[in-house]
């Protein structure tokens, strides 16, 4: 399994940061091919996906249906650009296939379908992921399986009522094999949060979740929060990740926060150079 330091007590954070940089590079190359895409979200979530696929998740890229695997559910199907990057980096799909992102007949769609290897649910109808994660966690617990279920969802997605139906149920059923990863990047389709969701962490605590809140682009904080979520405490776990859309490319970080970023063809070379320069400076 291509996992650099699974569940290690002394994880090599730089190795994970290196993976995150690779994911970002994949994301940018995929978006460059399309000239557009969910670049902001993809760059923002790259640190979390690197930590999951190279540190936290128990899975086997050669046996994707292993019953005891940990499940990762990407509820925000439009973040697929980052998931394809992670699955390629993890050896589930060929890196060379990434150039097909968003093209006709590609398996790497702009929103996730469950027919692509490594995808656990059909994401994209926001508000549907967490409830399916609750069902999987119940089923795995019924089987006595050691597997855990990780569900990524977003701040905008919390506006869907079904998110809270699922949150209520997970608390009620005391699903400590379930981890919600809430990407709070402050943007939704119509722009900056159109409905205030704060205080996010308090809401999850009130629904019975053991909740932590971190800088979602800080690898040390992500790894520590994931380690905390392994505890069999009789409570589901929520990690609120404050992420910066476009993270890793300062120009995109500063750009007006947009759900769907369009980048002009003439901009790409400069953006890629900026990304590589920024990546060189990342190491603590």
């Amino acid at each position, binding site marked *: 399994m291509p996992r650099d330091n699974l569940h290690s007590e002394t994880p090599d954070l730089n190795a994970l940061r290196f993976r995150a940089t690779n994911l970002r590079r994949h994301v940018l190359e995929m978006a460059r091919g399309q000239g557009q895409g969910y670049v902001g979200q993809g760059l923002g979530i790259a640190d979390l996906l690197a930590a999951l696929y190279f540190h936290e998740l128990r899975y086997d890229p050669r046996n994707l249906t292993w019953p005891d695997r940990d499940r990762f559910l990407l509820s925000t199907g439009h973040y697929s650009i980052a998931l394809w990057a992670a699955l390629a980096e993890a050896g589930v799909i060929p890196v060379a296939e990434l150039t097909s992102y968003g093209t006709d007949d590609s398996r790497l769609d702009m929103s996730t379908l469950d027919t692509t290897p490594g995808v656990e649910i059909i994401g994209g109808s926001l*508000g549907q992921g967490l*409830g399916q994660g*609750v*069902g999987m966690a*119940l*089923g795995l617990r019924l089987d006595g399986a050691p597997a855990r279920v990780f569900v990524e969802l977003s701040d905008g997605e919390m506006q869907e009522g*079904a998110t809270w139906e*699922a949150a*209520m*149920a997970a608390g009620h059923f005391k699903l400590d094999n379930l981890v919600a990863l809430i990407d709070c990047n402050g943007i939704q389709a119509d722009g900056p949060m159109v409905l205030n969701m704060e205080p996010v962490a308090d809401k999850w605590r009130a629904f019975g979740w053991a909740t932590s809140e971190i800088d979602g682009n800080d690898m040390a904080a992500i790894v520590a929060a994931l380690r905390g979520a392994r505890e069999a405490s009789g409570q589901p776990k929520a990690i609120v990740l404050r992420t910066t859309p476009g993270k890793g490319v300062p120009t995109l970080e500063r750009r007006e926060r947009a759900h769907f970023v369009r980048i002009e063809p003439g901009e790409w070379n400069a953006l890629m150079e900026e990304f590589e320069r920024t990546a060189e400076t990342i190491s603590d």
Partner: protein
Amino acid sequence: MTERARSLVMGQDEAAALGRATVEAPFGNALVELGRARPEIVGLTADLGKYTDILPFRDAFPQRFFNVGMAEQNLVAIAAGLARTGKIPFATTYGVFATRRAYDFIAIACAHGAINVKIVAGLPGLTTGYGGTHQAIEDLALMRMIPGLTVIDPCDATEIAQATAAIADHPGPVYMRLLRGNVPIVLDPLSYEFEIGKAKLLREGHDVGVISTGFMTERALDAAATLGGRGMSVGVLHAPTLKPFDADAVAAFAGSVERLVTVENHVVVGGLGSLVAECLFERGMVRPLRRVGLPDRFIECGSVPVLQDRYGLSSERVIEAVASCP
């Protein structure tokens, strides 16, 4: 309790008055039997366990039963998640809530991925006097439009029990209407055989062919017998599966009669009548067709027998409709 109040509460419990033998909770008891043989079967409800006959399953397998509270979207999502871990979830609620409230979840979380979820929906059509909020008058139309979803409207206790077993064996998402409580026996359990996707010829006849689904098949058979006594030859084809629809059997049946009547516990828009018209027209078959079903409107509160008669579903009204079929 007054007679009207009893009817409001009990909804479908008119079988005793009609003098038929009944079976108590045929769905729940069939599910318990299946659950003994198949540990992967699990049960769920959204605070309507008592009213959807699933409590026998809870009592037999408490670890395999989940009451998710009043949250039908989550009911369907959790069922989908359970199915993705290899379970066969049977999720119960009322048809109105399953179809109107959880539609996107049935479509995407279940049907899109061909996920093995069984949705069992109480109070189908006009079987409650609680008014438009509780009467699932258009559920079959809504469900039959979802790609890959199997849609079943069983006739009686015999069919409920057989269909419960059949859908457990069928890999894929299913929406099945539920008849609850003391459910009459109309179809002979020794000779009747339910098959998903198959219509069954229950009575031969050459003047008028009645195609019916759900418990309206009981009324269609009553009408055929009554009119047979008056010298009219009325056949009955029972089509419990709305999707996939047995167009071949319908076409063959239509070819053997002069006129057609469809009879359903559902609005005449988008249900059985529409299906029959679609499949015959596509085959170039033309028959005079009368569609018996609920009108295109929301229905008021009241006692079930009165409402069913008012809106054309009572045996008397079905007899009139078939007898006067042009």
